[in-house]
């Protein structure tokens, strides 16, 4: 190997990017060539100085805080049933202040929707579902035993949620949790289907409109229905037909309700 070639390969050698044959050739060349060896030592020294860490520029805390805090905030303002990416991006671009500005009219829009709409607080439900998937947030009571989950809610809510184990239908109950949606406390039951998580929220309502509404929000499927003066909302990343199967299994009066 000539020095000229070695000068270039020296760097790849230093970076451990040479194949075995080239590596051997380099080693052999350096044994014979003091000049290249000196160069190599220079570059090794340079590398060591650079990698000591004082040159690394870490993101300022303000920037990090802005982004970590902006994510949940950004999910909330887009309260329309349609996924709207652009407003999310804009809200984040303008940071917190702008996010608030965007959020306010949308909340009004959302609350007007609530008054007459079936897709009540859809984004809120999905946000809650997403939040629940984060570590340590999924369940307050972890139990595959349905007889543990139901009594756990006693005294924590002003209603008794309907708790069913649907393991027979392929949707084992894995736990429960208290959550808040649209300003009231709700019961959240957590079911699993394969590796997918289903959150089933329920809370009492005054009217018993028997509408079942299926919607999608940011790729999550949401099914809402009302029965026996209880509002139910199921959210999951399962596809819609699978989620519908789950809902049918839950609605099926043949499966026993836990007491």
């Amino acid at each position, binding site marked *: 190997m000539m020095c000229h070639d070695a000068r270039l390969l020296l760097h790849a050698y230093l970076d451990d*990017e040479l194949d075995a044959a080239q590596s051997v050739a380099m080693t052999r060349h350096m044994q014979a060539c003091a000049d290249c060896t000196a160069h190599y030592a*220079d570059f090794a*020294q340079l590398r060591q100085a*650079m990698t000591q860490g004082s040159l690394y*520029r870490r993101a300022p805390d303000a920037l990090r805080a802005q982004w970590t805090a902006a994510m949940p905030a950004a999910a909330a303002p887009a309260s329309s049933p349609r996924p709207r*990416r652009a407003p999310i991006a804009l809200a984040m671009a303008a940071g917190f202040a702008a996010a608030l500005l965007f959020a306010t009219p949308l909340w009004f829009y959302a609350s007007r929707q609530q008054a007459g709409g079936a897709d009540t607080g859809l984004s809120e439900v999905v946000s809650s579902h997403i939040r629940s998937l984060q570590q340590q947030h999924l369940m307050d009571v972890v139990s595959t035993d349905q007889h543990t989950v139901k009594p756990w809610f006693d005294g924590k809510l002003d209603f008794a949620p309907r708790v069913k184990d649907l393991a027979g239908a392929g949707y084992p109950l894995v736990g429960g949790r208290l959550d808040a949606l649209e300003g009231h406390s709700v019961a959240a039951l957590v079911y699993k289907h394969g590796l997918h998580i289903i959150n089933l929220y329920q809370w009492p309502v005054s009217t018993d409109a028997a509408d079942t509404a299926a919607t999608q929000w940011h790729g999550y499927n949401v099914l809402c229905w009302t029965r026996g003066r209880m509002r139910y909302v199921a959210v999951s990343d399962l596809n819609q037909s699978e989620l519908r199967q789950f809902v049918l299994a839950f609605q099926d009066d043949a499966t026993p309700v836990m007491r």
Partner: protein
Amino acid sequence: MPNKLHRHPPNPQASASASFEGVVLPHLDAAYNLARWLARDDTDAQDVVQEALLRALRYYASFHGGDARVWLLAIVRNTFYSLRMKVPADGVHEAFDDEMHAPPDEQPGPEAQTLLALDVGSLQRALENLPHPLREAIVLRELEECSYKEIASITGQKIGTVMSRLARARERLRLELSCPSKEARQHDVP
């Protein structure tokens, strides 16, 4: 148990903003480090990262797995160059000619190790004086510890180009650090 729940393959269009936080934001430091070394200014670097993250969020649906860091760094790099184009005041266009910047043919020098000024200040100045193409390569290599292949895909260059740019970057750093005063004047680049 919640750990397990994260492992299921994410439904591509699902969970966009949720997984963005988990997949992309961990590389915030890397993004800032690259932006900071390209822009050489704190405020500009923050603007670049801000804009890059917005773009990343916008294009997140088209990110199909792979190395999120490489993906994000490529966006940061593109953002930096596109923002720089928009500001003509800054506009020293470094038309980088790979041939022009070929390392000077050295005389068979002394067979001893050169004494290098390797304090942080000198290193930082020398790095900042490198032309952008060389600087990004060396920053990605030494500070981000990217492989040649990763650098190639971040910068959109061939691996051979990456290798020769790294070689040139190091040659220049070595020159500059061995006789700082003369080199500093000579390479008083933008």
